[in-house]
C-alpha cells in the first residue's frame, strides 16, 4: 500500500478530506497570526475577541486543531482516507517530538506537580521516550500527527482550564527575579504549537510521503518568512507611530512661513516651516529640533564615503587585477575581513588616540568622517574585490586581444561591469556607519543638543588664503552632533531632561524616526544608483 508507485499520476478533484486538511492548515496560520499579534500586545490575552477572551480563543482553537489533525492521522491509518505514507515519520521528526515532549513532561512534573529532580527526570524520560516511540515506530500518518495533535490539545486544555491563566506567573527564582508572565508565555506557546500542528496538517493535506513532506516544509518556511517580514514591518511601524507626533509638531505651510535661506546670493523664505528638522535646541524655540544632528550625520556619511570609496576600489583593483594571486593577496583578504568585523568602539578609540591629536587636537567633524571612513574601507574592498572577480575573464581576454592595455580594460570594462556589486557594498556599509554611535562619541561629539546656529556649513566653510595650506575649512575642524549620538545621550545620559526640551519622550522617538529616514534615504540613493548602473549593463 505504501510506496510512491501507488500514487495516482493525476489526482482527482479536491476531496472533502483534502478540504478539511487545507482548512486545518489555514486555521493554524490564523492561529499563528493571532498569537503573534498578542505577543506584540496588539491584542492582550484578556481582551474579548468575538465574545470570548483571547486566551480562551487561543486554547479552543488549539484543541480543535489538535483533534482535527489526530483524527486525520488515525483515519488515514485505518484506511478511511487515501494517503501515501512512508513506513516511519523519520528520525528528525521523531527526535524533535521526543525532545519537545521531554521538555513538556519535565516542566509539568517539576512545576505543576512539584516533583523533585529525580521525579521530573523520570517523567521527562517517560514522556519524551513515549513521544519518540509514537512518532518513530508507527506509520508516518500516525507518527507525524499524533504527537503534534496531542501537544496542541494538551496546550489548549492547559490554557482553557486556567492552569496557565491570565494571572499566571512563573518566578524562576533567580537572583535577578526573572519571571515569565502569561502575557508573553501563552502567545509564544500558542505560536509554537500552531506551527507544529500546521506542519502536521500540511503533511496530511499532501497525503504524507514525499509530497506531504514537501508541503509541510513549504508551510513552515512560508510562515517563517512571513513572520520575519511582519517583525520588520512592526519594528518600523512602531518607530514611525511613536515618532510621528514629535516629528510634525508645529508644521506650518504658507508663503514666508519657513526660515530664511540664501541660495546663490538670493535670500528667500521657505514656504514650509517644519520646526523639528529646521530648528536646533534653544531656550526660546517653540518647538525644538535636530537640524544640526541631521546635517552632521549627512556630512559624516558623505565624508566617509568620499574618503573610503576611492581608496577601497583602488585597493581592490590592485589586489584583483595586478597582484599575483598568492600569499600576499590571501593576507590582505584575511586582514580586510578581520577589519570589517572589528568592533566599532575600537575604531573610535583609534580615532580618538590617533586622529584627534593630529587634527587640531580636538574632536572634530573631520576626525569623525575619517574614523567612519576607516570603518567603511574594508567592506568596500571586500565587495569590490568580489564583484570584480565575478566579471567574466572572457571580457578581459577580448579586450586584451584587441590590443587594449590592462588599465584601460580595468577602467572601461571591469569596473563598469562590477559597479552594481560595488554599489551594493557601499549601501551596506553606509547603513552600518550612519547608525554608529561609539566612534562618533569618541571623535566628534559636540554638545548633546546643539542650537540651530551650530549647524555645520561645510560648503560655506571653505576659505582661501595665500599661505599654505591655501584652503581651510574651520567647519570641518569643529565638533558637531549626529543623530545616533544625540539619541544615545538623550536616552541613556538623560541630558535632555536638564536642557530646554519639554516632552522629552516625544523628542527621542522623533529623533529615532529621523535617523531611520536618513538611513533609508541613503539606501534609496544607493539602490537608485545600482539600478542605473545595472540597467546600463543589461539589455531589456
Amino acid at each position, binding site marked *: 500500500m505504501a510506496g510512491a508507485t501507488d500514487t495516482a499520476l493525476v489526482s482527482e478533484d479536491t476531496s472533502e478530506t483534502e478540504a478539511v486538511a487545507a482548512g486545518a492548515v489555514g486555521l493554524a496560520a490564523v492561529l499563528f497570526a493571532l498569537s503573534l499579534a498578542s505577543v506584540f500586545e496588539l491584542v492582550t490575552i484578556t481582551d474579548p475577541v468575538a465574545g470570548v477572551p483571547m486566551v480562551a480563543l487561543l486554547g479552543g482553537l488549539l484543541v480543535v486543531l489538535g483533534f482535527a489533525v489526530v483524527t486525520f492521522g488515525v483515519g488515514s491509518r485505518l484506511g478511511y482516507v487515501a494517503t501515501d505514507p512512508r513506513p516511519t515519520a523519520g528520525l528528525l521528526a521523531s527526535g524533535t517530538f521526543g525532545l519537545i515532549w521531554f521538555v513538556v513532561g519535565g516542566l509539568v512534573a517539576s512545576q505543576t506537580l512539584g516533583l523533585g529532580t529525580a521525579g521530573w527526570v523520570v517523567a521527562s524520560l517517560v514522556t519524551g521516550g513515549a513521544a519518540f516511540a509514537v512518532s518513530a515506530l508507527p506509520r508516518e500518518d500516525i507518527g507525524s500527527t499524533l504527537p503534534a495533535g496531542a501537544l496542541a490539545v494538551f496546550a489548549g486544555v492547559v490554557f482553557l482550564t486556567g492552569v496557565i491563566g491570565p494571572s499566571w506567573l512563573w518566578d524562576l527564582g533567580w537572583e535577578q527575579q526573572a519571571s515569565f508572565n502569561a502575557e508573553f508565555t501563552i502567545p509564544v506557546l500558542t505560536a509554537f504549537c500552531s506551527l507544529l500542528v500546521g506542519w502536521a496538517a500540511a503533511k496530511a493535506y499532501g497525503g504524507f510521503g514525499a509530497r506531504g513532506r514537501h508541503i509541510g516544509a513549504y508551510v513552515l518556511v512560508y510562515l517563517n518568512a512571513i513572520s520575519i517580514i511582519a517583525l520588520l514591518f512592526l519594528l518600523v511601524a512602531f518607530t514611525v507611530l511613536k515618532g510621528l507626533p514629535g516629528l510634525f509638531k508645529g508644521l506650518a505651510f504658507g508663503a514666508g512661513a519657513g526660515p530664511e535661506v540664501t541660495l546663490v546670493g538670493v535670500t528667500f523664505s521657505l514656504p514650509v516651516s517644519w520646526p523639528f528638522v529646521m530648528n536646533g535646541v534653544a531656550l526660546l524655540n517653540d518647538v525644538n529640533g535636530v537640524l544640526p544632528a541631521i546635517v552632521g550625520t549627512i556630512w559624516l556619511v558623505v565624508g566617509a564615503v568620499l574618503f573610503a570609496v576611492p581608496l577601497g576600489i583602488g585597493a581592490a583593483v590592485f589586489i584583483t587585477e595586478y597582484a*599575483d594571486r598568492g600569499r600576499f593577496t590571501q593576507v590582505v583578504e584575511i586582514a580586510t575581513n578581520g577589519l570589517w568585523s572589528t568592533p566599532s568602539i575600537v575604531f573610535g578609540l583609534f580615532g580618538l588616540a590617533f586622529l584627534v591629536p593630529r587634527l587640531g587636537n580636538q574632536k572634530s567633524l573631520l576626525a569623525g568622517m575619517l574614523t567612519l571612513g576607516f570603518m567603511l574601507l574594508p567592506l568596500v574592498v571586500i565587495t569590490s574585490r568580489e564583484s570584480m572577480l565575478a566579471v*567574466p575573464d*572572457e*571580457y578581459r*581576454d*577580448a*579586450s*586584451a*586581444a*584587441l*590590443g*587594449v*592595455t590592462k588599465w*584601460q580594460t580595468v577602467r*572601461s*570594462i571591469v569596473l*563598469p*561591469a562590477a559597479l552594481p556589486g560595488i554599489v551594493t557594498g557601499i549601501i551596506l556599509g553606509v547603513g552600518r556607519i550612519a547608525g554608529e554611535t561609539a566612534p562618533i562619541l569618541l571623535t566628534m561629539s559636540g554638545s548633546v543638543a546643539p542650537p540651530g546656529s551650530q549647524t555645520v556649513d561645510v560648503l560655506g566653510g571653505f576659505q582661501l588664503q595665500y599661505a599654505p595650506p591655501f584652503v581651510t575649512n574651520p567647519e570641518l575642524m569643529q565638533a558637531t552632533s549626529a543623530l545616533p549620538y544625540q539619541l544615545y545621550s538623550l536616552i541613556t545620559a538623560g541630558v535632555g531632561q536638564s536642557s530646554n526640551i519639554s516632552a522629552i519622550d516625544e523628542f527621542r522617538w522623533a529623533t529615532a524616526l529621523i535617523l531611520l529616514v536618513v538611513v533609508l534615504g541613503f539606501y534609496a540613493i544607493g539602490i537608485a544608483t545600482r539600478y542605473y548602473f545595472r540597467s*546600463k*549593463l*543589461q*539589455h*531589456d
Partner: protein
Amino acid sequence: MSETRQTTDDAQATADSELAGGASPGTDQPLEVTSGETRERTREEWVEHEFEGEAKLSVSDLDVYYGDDHALKSVSMEIPENSVTALIGPSGCGKSTFLRCLNRMNDRIKAASIDGSVRLEGEELYQDGVNLVELRKRVGMVFQSPNPFPKSIADNISYGPRKHGDLDTGLLANLLGRSDDDAVDELVERSLQQAALWDEVNDRLDDNALGLSGGQQQRLCIARALATDPEVLLMDEPASALDPIATSKIEDLVHDLAEEYTVVIVTHNMQQAARISDQTAVFLTGGELVEYGDTDQVFEDPQSQRVEDYISGKFG
C-alpha cells in the same frame, strides 16, 4: 575509437601505413594501436606547403609547455598572406594553443612557457621589446564563445580604436570641437557591413549587445576585431556554439575576409575546414603538426595514414 573494432582490413591498412610511415619494412612486429590511432612517424615533407609569395606568419620549432605538459611539439609552418588557413584536429591536440601563440595570448596564462620562433612579416614576436598592444592590433582574435562587452553595439565596435587613441569621442574632445563622432559612425557601419551584420542591427546600434542572438553576437565580435584594422585574424572555433544558419553566415564571412586579411581558423568541423580554407594543417594527439598543405590535397589525398584515419572519421 575502440581498439576491438580492428578488423583484418584495418590491420592491413595499418601495416601499409607502417611502411608508408618509414618504419623499417619487413619487420613483423605486432600491431599496436593507441587511442584508435595508427603508429607512424611524422615525416618532415608532410608539413611543407609550397605557395607563391611571402609568408605572412612563419613559425619554426615552436614548443609550448603548460607546467610539465608538453602541449605543442616543435611545430613549424608558414602561413601565406590573404588566405584562409584551417587548423583541425581532435580535442587537446594543441591547435588552440598554437593559435594563441600567434598573438601571444598565451602570455596571459601563467603556467605556459613558450620556446621557439614566430615571425610576423619577418619580425620575431618572441623577443624582448615586442609591443603587445601593437601586436594584438595587427593580429586580431575571435574567441570560441561570443563575448561582446556589456555595452551598446556601437560602443563594442568602436571600443578598440577609442582605447588606442585613434578615435576620441570624450567630453573634452566634444568641448574642443575635435570629436570623431562622424568617424566613429563610419567605422561602426563599415565594420558591421564587413561582418554582414549591418542590415540586421542598423536600427538599434545603441542597444546593449547582450540582447543579440548568439550568431549575431559572434559576428559582432568579428566586426569588433575588424574595427581595429588588423592584418591577421585568428579565429578559435568561431562557429562551434552556433546553429547551422549562423554557422553558414560566419563561413561566408570568413571566405570574404580572406580577400583582405590573413585568416587562421581553428575548427572541429572538417567539412567546414574543407569548405572555407585554402590550406589545412592537421594537428594530432600529442601536440604534433602531422600534415600541412593545400586543403584539397589534405582532404583528398593525405600523405599520412593517421590523417586519413582522422579525416575519414576512424578516430577523433
